[in-house]
């Protein structure tokens, strides 16, 4: 094990400290990550594109700022991986779809602009289910990502690439997006930390839109503090996103450093657990609640009856927005253009239909058609209209629960990592993976998933915290407390085995 490998093992905060102390350089740390990507990612498939040259150039600039004692941010020089749903100048942005193969955007997403401005070298773009539609990263047009805990299993999705890269220490930090759980569920399945900030807390500008009223970008890391540090870099008002919240970022870093649950009221959501949840998942969850109780939290049970219908409402609202958002892929201005076979002088409409058939994968087509159906006249009120009302009930349930509790807690996902292919032919079984994460997206409230230990199958389990709108700091406070208690219990962090190194050799 060389010195550079050790650097890849550091958390973002540890690396930032080492850079500030002049003990290492960003170039060395970035190279350590690139070496690890080179060694392991042939097996894992977590990156769709690696930008070694760009990352090393950004790292060299960070080192100059550090030596001049004028770092651009606390994370200046700490490398980051970015989900391939965010636009990046100079790097392809495919959204995991053939329809955008090779497309290089002419502008950066605001999140990317902020990463660059804060001095974080961007290692590359991470794999995802096509257009972020899926819960296993098997729906990527460029091949699946594998779970570093067991390469026969999926890392969850849609952000399986970011989660696997961080779990395998290919990157200390990554960016994900979460429309129904795509940051938190992969976090649970790979033993990493994932945060979906309050809707509007992080700009959506330059992020390929899936369901605009649900999409939210957020941090993917190995520790709660790292997530908070990254959250602070990417969060805050952006005039380029009209739904961006015009208010300061909640004090997330301070909360992550505090981690004190004494006197905190924690609500266990009755409807998110028990039946349908794997026994090992339920057991780790209950132990986490017990630890929080011992640390002085008051645990109450809260009931959110409409959560039982959140999944159904989500699978109407989301595809409806998808069918509208993905209309932009029309083969006219950018992306793939395919001409229909056997048609002389085809019309724009025929080219559009042929391109969308060739460029979109099965799950994307399924959701577009479903959304087209739900929005059809005659069905609109029964489906989309009703779903919007259920959405209001979900938000109301959250409001009532937060009168009784400061934060809510539940298992993040109903199971541990499942085998590749296991749910691929059963869309409904796949959709159930997001049963506990979806309510937060419908209501817009923030959520965080934290590793809670291993289940009976030796695979990681996630525990999820939920907080009221714009109270993201509460997530970090509660999660930091639980993280500390768990680390004391385990005697160290929960890390995915590095055994994949042998596999790739």
């Amino acid at each position, binding site marked *: 094990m060389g010195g550079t490998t050790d650097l890849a093992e550091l958390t973002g905060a540890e690396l930032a400290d080492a850079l500030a102390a002049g003990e290492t350089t960003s170039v060395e740390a970035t190279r350590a990550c690139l070496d690890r990507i080179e060694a392991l990612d042939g097996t894992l498939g977590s990156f769709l594109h690696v930008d070694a040259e760009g990352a090393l150039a950004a790292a060299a600039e960070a080192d100059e700022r550090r030596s001049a004692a004028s770092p651009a941010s606390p994370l200046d020089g700490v490398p980051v991986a970015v989900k391939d749903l965010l636009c990046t100048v100079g790097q392809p942005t495919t959204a995991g779809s053939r329809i955008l193969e090779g497309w290089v955007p002419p502008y950066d997403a605001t999140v990317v602009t902020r990463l660059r401005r804060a001095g974080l070298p961007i290692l590359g773009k991470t794999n995802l289910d096509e257009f972020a539609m899926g819960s296993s990263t098997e729906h990527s047009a460029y091949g699946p990502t594998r779970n570093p805990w067991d390469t026969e299993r999926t890392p969850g999705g849609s952000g399986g690439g970011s989660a696997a890269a961080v779990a395998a220490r290919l990157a200390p930090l990554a960016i994900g997006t979460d429309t129904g759980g795509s940051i938190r569920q992969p976090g649970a399945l790979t033993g990493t930390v994932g945060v979906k900030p309050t809707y509007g807390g992080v700009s959506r500008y330059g992020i390929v839109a899936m369901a605009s009223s649900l999409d939210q970008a957020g941090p993917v890391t190995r520790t709660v503090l790292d997530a908070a540090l990254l959250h602070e870099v990417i969060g805050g008002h952006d*005039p380029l996103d009209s739904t961006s919240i015009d208010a300061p970022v909640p004090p997330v870093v301070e909360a992550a450093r505090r981690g004190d649950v004494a006197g905190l009221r924690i609500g266990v959501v009755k409807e998110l657990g028990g039946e349908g949840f794997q026994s090992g998942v339920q057991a780790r969850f209950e132990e986490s609640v017990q630890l929080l109780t011992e640390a002085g939290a008051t645990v109450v049970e809260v009931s959110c009856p409409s959560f039982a219908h959140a999944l159904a409402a989500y699978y109407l609202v989301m595809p409806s927005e998808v069918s509208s958002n993905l209309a932009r892929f029309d083969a006219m201005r950018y992306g793939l*253009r395919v001409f229909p076979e056997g048609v002389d*002088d085809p019309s724009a409409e025929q080219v559009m239909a042929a391109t969308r058939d060739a460029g979109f994968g099965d799950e994307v087509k*399924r959701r577009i058609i479903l959304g087209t159906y739900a929005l*059809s006249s005659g069905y609109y009120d029964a489906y989309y209209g009703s*779903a919007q009302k*259920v959405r209001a009930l979900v938000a109301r349930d959250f409001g009532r629960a937060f009168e009784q509790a400061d934060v809510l807690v539940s298992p993040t996902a109903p199971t541990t990592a499942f085998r590749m292919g296991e749910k691929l032919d059963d869309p409904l079984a796949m959709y159930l993976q997001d049963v506990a994460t979806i309510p937060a997206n419908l209501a817009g409230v923030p959520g965080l998933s934290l590793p809670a230990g291993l289940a009976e199958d030796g695979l990681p389990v996630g525990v999820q915290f939920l907080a009221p709108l714009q109270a993201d700091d509460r997530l970090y406070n509660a999660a930091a407390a639980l993280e500390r208690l768990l680390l004391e219990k385990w005697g160290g962090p929960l890390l995915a085995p590095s055994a994949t190194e042998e596999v790739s050799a």
Partner: protein
Amino acid sequence: MSVEITRDDVAHLAGLARIQLDDDELDRLGQELPKIIESVATVSQALEGAGEVEPMSHPTPLRNVFREDVVHECLTPEAALAGAPASEEQRFMVPKILGEE
């Protein structure tokens, strides 16, 4: 609640969505869609006894967002056209849009 969606319905929806599905895809979606729709149709039952509920389109209250009408940097024509499948004279070149049969 059982849902009737025929293969022809799927073909019609695909036409509306401008996706030229092949026969296999139509067959498969014709099987899958009714099951998915049946499972999400429970939303209407969820509302029984809930009284008047205002539909929610968005998690946070939407308001108009204004800015000063000032000129600022934007994409050059070259950058805007860089990803186009075809372009000519600083314009997107598209297949014929008139004279369809």
